[in-house]
């Protein structure tokens, strides 16, 4: 082989015609752009979170419990403090807060913080400098949302428990809380002394107790962990470090991980297909020159190398453009997702992502180019002498087999790299192979079906168009695969995207309750209901709450069961020791689904025991299943029950949901409080209701979560935007692939059209011939791709994304029609020159 000649030839050849084909390399550009953007963005998030981990936690270490920190832990904290470690305690509890100025009342989170907290980052208040001085002086600082919710101003008074507090300022930025959290659940801040004198905390109050420690030295932190791990574990005090918290946060951002992976993968594969068709066009156009060069004595290997170099060059150029575009998108994403991300994400060019993008782009270009490039080797010199010569004998070619294996290997590798897990990647790759095989099979059988049922009675343009589907040099199989695969990828992503968006919508639907009332006494239920506006009364549901603890399982006491550390039946501490708030229900709630056993109307032999239904996680942690016995302590009375069913609960829905639900009647007579949910359409209505509620039933707390819904909706619409934005990438790549694969046949169709014209064909006739072929291919290939997309997403949506699958028939139909129209449009556009220009140009021998 003459390598020098190959390089020179590559340079000379690419001067010519590469511009026409270069457009289709845009598909690899989009693929690489998606890849670079997604990977860099993930890096950005992970890095930003890591960098701001201490600021986010406000300290290096946090100890937290739902009960006051036990003496053993307090002793540890005190001794650390004595040794010079900075310590700040924070206690958080909910309280009804009244604003005398407006008369508004609201349940608000109250946080009592010791000076020093947070140790990292700075708190911005307006007026500035009030943190923590306002607190130590007995004032209150509030989140800005509190001001609007209670319709108060700085300087006004808030009544909290037994205290009247002056609002000294608004907390504009507390680095330890996320932007949207304060909108969902705004807080007020006081000193521990104020909290104590307000008298809010009595034994058994719901509160969260935290101690923040400043231990910058990682080794000292580690020493603390190893030394006291057991104490924390036994006292059930949660121990977390800034690094650990950072990891948790990063993974919470991975909520879009699978989706992003699919988008990146889809865009890259479309890029590969785009490259393959671009090279196919290129090689086809260059066939005559290749043939002549072969006649003149150029070796197969030399020519092959020359064209391989060109493909690599185009791949490099396309990928470089993709990197630039990807870096731009990377900059857009943090802005598009502002408010959703846990930290301010600063984009930084990630060398790894950039070079991986470039490398993968060139690699994919070369691998996908190999198959069409092998044609170069097979161009017979005879073709220089006979234009229409075709080597009919298809020999078994090991290089071709190798090229296909290379493509397959590349696809598998890409899937594994992009998918969150190896197994999943292999699954993707397997699924994709099946899809391509099905599409090719469909294209192949189409040629046979059309030949078999040829419309021999149809007018000439239709017969000619249809015969193009199966005659020599037909493009049916290649176009079916390219078009079908393109629509498959786009269709799948749109289906998944649609189902994800639907899920986000369902959780916060229009007719959901928006007010939660709790701590209602049994005899107050009717009174509270009467206060509701008439329109809301019917929809309001009251649910009893009975506090209980588990005493024994299967007759064995919890202490006994927990002592047996070796047993597989040893229940987990959180589930066996917690205080349960149980209820009884006639019917399943809207966020519940039975996974095992039957509901009350399903008869079950219990030996006279009342039946109870458990949530699946708690059942698993207690190591119990249907038919097992649990003994509860309800206000000093022991009740033995039998587990009759296991439920799955969608905790994310804003509905009252429970670990344990009893058969109706069992809890009657037990001391209980009632919670009630209702929907009050209008903000004014809600305010009036809450005011009258405080007057009539001061012990009842009301939580208006329509505001929370608004805030969450704002967050979700951002997520929606980002998902749609990324999904658009695959749609664009699909378009480019479509154009590329159609142009593969453009020059041939052009010569045919010119010829028909010299033979006297009118433009209309030529148009009709082309239309028949393209419309047939466009509709059939697209339909096949979409059917496969529906199947693939119906499988992936519930398993991979764990949301319900919804068929988006309208969108799919729109894709179907537009791709079919586009196919015909692009196909015709390719021949437009011939329709308007004199035919001699095209037909004159080159």
């Amino acid at each position, binding site marked *: 082989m003459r390598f020098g000649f190959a390089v020179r030839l590559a340079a000379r050849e690419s001067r010519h015609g590469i511009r026409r084909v270069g457009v289709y390399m845009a598909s690899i550009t989009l693929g690489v752009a998606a890849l670079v953007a997604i990977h860099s963005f993930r890096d950005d998030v992970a890095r930003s979170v890591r960098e701001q981990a201490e600021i986010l936690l406000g300290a290096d270490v946090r100890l937290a419990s739902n009960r006051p920190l036990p003496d053993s832990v307090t002793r540890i904290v005190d001794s650390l403090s004595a040794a010079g470690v900075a310590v700040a305690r924070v206690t958080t509890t909910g309280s009804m807060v009244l604003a005398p100025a407006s008369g508004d009342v609201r349940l608000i989170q109250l946080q009592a913080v010791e000076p020093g907290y947070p140790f990292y980052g700075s708190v911005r208040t307006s007026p500035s400098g009030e943190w923590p001085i306002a607190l130590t002086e007995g004032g209150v600082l509030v989140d800005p949302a509190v001001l609007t919710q209670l319709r108060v101003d700085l300087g006004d008074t808030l009544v909290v428990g037994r205290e009247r507090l002056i609002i000294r300022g608004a907390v504009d930025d507390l680095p330890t809380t996320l932007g949207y959290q304060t909108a969902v659940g705004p807080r007020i801040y006081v000193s521990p002394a104020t909290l104590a004198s307000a008298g809010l905390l009595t034994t058994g109050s719901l509160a969260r107790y935290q101690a923040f420690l400043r231990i910058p030295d990682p080794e000292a932190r580690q020493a603390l962990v190893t030394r006291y791990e057991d104490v924390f574990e036994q006292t059930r005090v949660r121990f977390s470090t800034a690094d650990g918290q950072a990891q948790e946060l990063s993974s919470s951002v991975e909520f879009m991980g699978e989706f992003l992976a699919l988008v990146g993968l889809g865009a890259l594969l479309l890029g590969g297909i785009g490259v393959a068709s671009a090279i196919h066009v290129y090689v086809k156009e260059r066939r005559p020159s290749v043939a002549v060069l072969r006649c003149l004595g150029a070796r197969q290997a030399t020519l092959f190398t020359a064209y391989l170099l060109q493909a690599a060059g185009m791949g490099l150029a396309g990928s470089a453009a993709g990197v630039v575009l990807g870096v731009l998108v990377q900059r857009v994403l943090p802005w598009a997702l502002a408010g959703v991300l846990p930290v301010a994400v600063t984009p930084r060019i990630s060398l790894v992502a950039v070079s991986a993008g470039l490398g993968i782009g060139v690699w994919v270009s070369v691998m996908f180019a190999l198959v069409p490039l092998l044609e170069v080797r097979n161009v017979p010199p005879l073709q220089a002498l*006979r*234009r*229409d*010569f*075709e080597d*009919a004998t298809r020999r078994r070619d090991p290089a071709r087999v190798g090229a296909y294996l290379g493509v397959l290997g590349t696809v598998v590798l890409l899937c594994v790299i992009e998918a969150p897990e190896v197994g999943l990647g292999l699954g993707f790759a397997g699924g994709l192979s099946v899809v391509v095989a099905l599409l090719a099979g469909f294209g192949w059988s189409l040629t046979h079906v059309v030949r078999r049922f040829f419309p021999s009675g149809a*007018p*000439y343009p239709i017969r*000619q168009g249809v*015969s*193009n589907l199966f*005659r*020599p*040099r*037909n493009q049916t199989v290649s176009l079916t695969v390219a078009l079908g695969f393109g629509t498959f990828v786009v269709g799948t992503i749109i289906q998944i995207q649609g189902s994800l968006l639907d899920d986000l919508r369902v959780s916060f639907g229009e007719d959901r309750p928006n007010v939660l009332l709790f701590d209602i006494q049994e005899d107050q239920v009717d009174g509270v209901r009467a206060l509701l506006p008439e329109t809301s009364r019917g929809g309001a549901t009251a649910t009893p709450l009975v506090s209980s603890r588990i005493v024994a399982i299967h007759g064995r006491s919890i202490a006994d069961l927990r002592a047996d550390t070796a047993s597989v039946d040893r229940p987990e501490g959180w589930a066996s020791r917690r205080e349960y708030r149980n209820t009884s229900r006639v019917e399943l709630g809207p966020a519940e689904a039975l996974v095992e056993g039957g509901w009350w109307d399903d008869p079950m032999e219990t030996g006279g025991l009342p039946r109870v239904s458990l949530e699946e996680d708690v059942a698993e942690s207690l190591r119990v299943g249907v038919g097992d016995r649990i003994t509860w302590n309800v206000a000093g009375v022991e009740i033995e029950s039998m587990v009759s069913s296991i439920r799955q609960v969608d905790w994310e829905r804003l509905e009252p949901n429970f670990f344990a639900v009893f058969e109706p009647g069992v809890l009657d007579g037990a001391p209980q409080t009632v919670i009630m949910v209702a929907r009050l359409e209008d903000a004014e209505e809600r305010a009036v209701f809450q005011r009258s509620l405080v007057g009539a039933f001061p012990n009842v707390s009301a939580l208006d979560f329509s505001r929370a819904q608004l805030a969450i909706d704002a967050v979700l619409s951002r997520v929606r935007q980002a998902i749609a934005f990324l999904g658009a990438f695959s749609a664009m790549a699909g378009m480019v692939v479509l154009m590329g694969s159609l142009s593969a046949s453009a020059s*041939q169709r052009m*010569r*045919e059209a010119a*010829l*028909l*014209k*010299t*033979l*006297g*064909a*009118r*433009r*209309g*006739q030529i148009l009709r011939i082309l239309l028949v072929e393209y419309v047939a291919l466009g509709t059939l290939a697209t339909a096949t791709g979409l059917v496969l997309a529906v199947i693939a997403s119906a499988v992936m949506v519930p398993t991979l994304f764990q949301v319900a699958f919804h068929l988006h028939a309208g969108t799919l139909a729109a894709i179907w029609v537009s791709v079919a129209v586009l196919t015909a449009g692009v196909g015709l556009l390719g021949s437009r020159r011939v*329709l*308007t220009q*004199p*035919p*001699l*140009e095209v*037909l*004159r*021998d080159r």
Partner: protein
Amino acid sequence: MIIQAHGLEKTYLSGGHPLTVLRDVDLEVAPESFVAVVGPSGSGKTTLLGLLAGLDRPTRGRVILDGVDIFASTEDERAEFRARRVGFVFQSFHLLPTLTALENVLVPLELRGEGREHRDRAVDLLARVGLSGRMEHYPSQLSGGEQQRVALARAFVHRPRILFADEPTGNLDGETEKGVVSILEELNRESRTTLVLVTHDLSLAERAHRIVALANGEIVSDRPGGGA
């Protein structure tokens, strides 16, 4: 006069420079005559033929074909005109690769919606060019000469008033060439088709009624041939 060309000029822009390949050509051809166009390679023969058949637009000048000023009409009108009255044989046959030999011959009739009723005419013509056994073959399965003969049959199938042929025998051996030429002559006589034929072959040119010689895009001689 069935063909009247006046002041034909064709200028190409090649590499930014104008290149005049036909200069002020005047040509009149009598109905039913047989005109040979000769000249060295690159002298503009194919260009002239293309202009006369309306396959390309001249830079200047006009062509009146069978009484119709063809460049005063639209592309579609020209195409229809060809479908009814003009046949063309290319230097390099140009068959539709997706159609069989018979189907290729039938195309001009199909375009006029007469494919079915005149099918036998196509079969007949293919037999006359010696291809009765190859009707269902695709162009890629035919030799150059065979393809050329299919192209000839196609040019005649709709009985054009005028036939333009660009070196129709360039790819043929002596025997086949003789066959093709005699077919051409026969058709010219029988169907009273006007024949304008480009050739390098002087012995073939001598059989024409008239020989027009081109050089550098100009007519340099115009004399009666041996067939006159």
